[in-house]
């Protein structure tokens, strides 16, 4: 089960297994914790979407061959948004870089429409100051999500 802590510096941290249903559960718990911040529906929607995409990527790529991997998510509220840190011990990102998330080409026949590759596009679109580093066999991904999105 996900382990959720409310840290002294007002950060929220949750540790959970790298599996799809655990992502869903951890996300639900984190969003409930964030109720304390009294965010707008739009901000909550952006946060939930970016976190879901980033956490799903860890499960589907970093932990593709690791059935018992653990993911740690920490969120720190700051004056200009929520700073999010994700940590896992899975395989590195391709070429040691976070994907660009180029928008998919849609001017094609129906049968050629893309069914994936939207995740990084959404993350890049909605998050700021995204940074990925690999340290001591761990993937560290951080980004900021602005609040009061207009």
């Amino acid at each position, binding site marked *: 089960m996900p382990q959720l802590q409310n840290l002294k510096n007002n950060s929220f941290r949750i540790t959970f297994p790298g599996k799809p249903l655990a992502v869903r559960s951890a996300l639900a718990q984190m969003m409930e914790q964030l109720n304390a911040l009294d965010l707008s529906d739009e901000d909550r929607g952006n946060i939930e979407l970016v976190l879901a995409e980033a956490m799903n990527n860890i499960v589907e790529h970093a932990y593709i061959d690791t059935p018992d991997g653990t993911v740690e998510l920490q969120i720190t509220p700051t004056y200009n948004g929520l700073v999010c840190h994700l940590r896992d011990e899975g395989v590195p990102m391709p070429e040691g870089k976070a994907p660009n998330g180029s*928008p998919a080409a849609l001017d094609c026949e129906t049968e050629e*429409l893309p069914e994936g590759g939207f*995740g990084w596009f959404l993350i890049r679109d909605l998050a700021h100051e995204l940074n990925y580093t690999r340290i001591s066999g761990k993937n560290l991904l951080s980004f900021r999500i602005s609040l009061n999105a207009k």
Partner: protein
Amino acid sequence: MQLESTPRDDALVVTAMMERIDAAIAIQFKDDLHAVTENGPPRVVLDLSQVDFLDSSGLGAVVAAMKLLAPEQKLELAGLGANVEKVFRLTRMDSVFTIHSTVDAAFDGIAQAS
């Protein structure tokens, strides 16, 4: 099966009964949508009004289900909430689907496509 399908006029209305279409159920959703639309009428309206959250995996599942339709079939969407609409808009998938504000609007005979 978390999909309910109801014939309406010459179309089939498929209502997604789940609150979330995410990575955990995307494949199941695609398979279920394929199953209820297979051998169905040419026009299918997918009612997403009960869905609060859709991620890129859920979006991919909707696209994949559309691609599995017969050549004469068409998938339209209805009742997208703010969070769901945003994913379609940001990825520009709203340009691929005919989107109606509500299921009723899809049958008004008035163009409500976005």
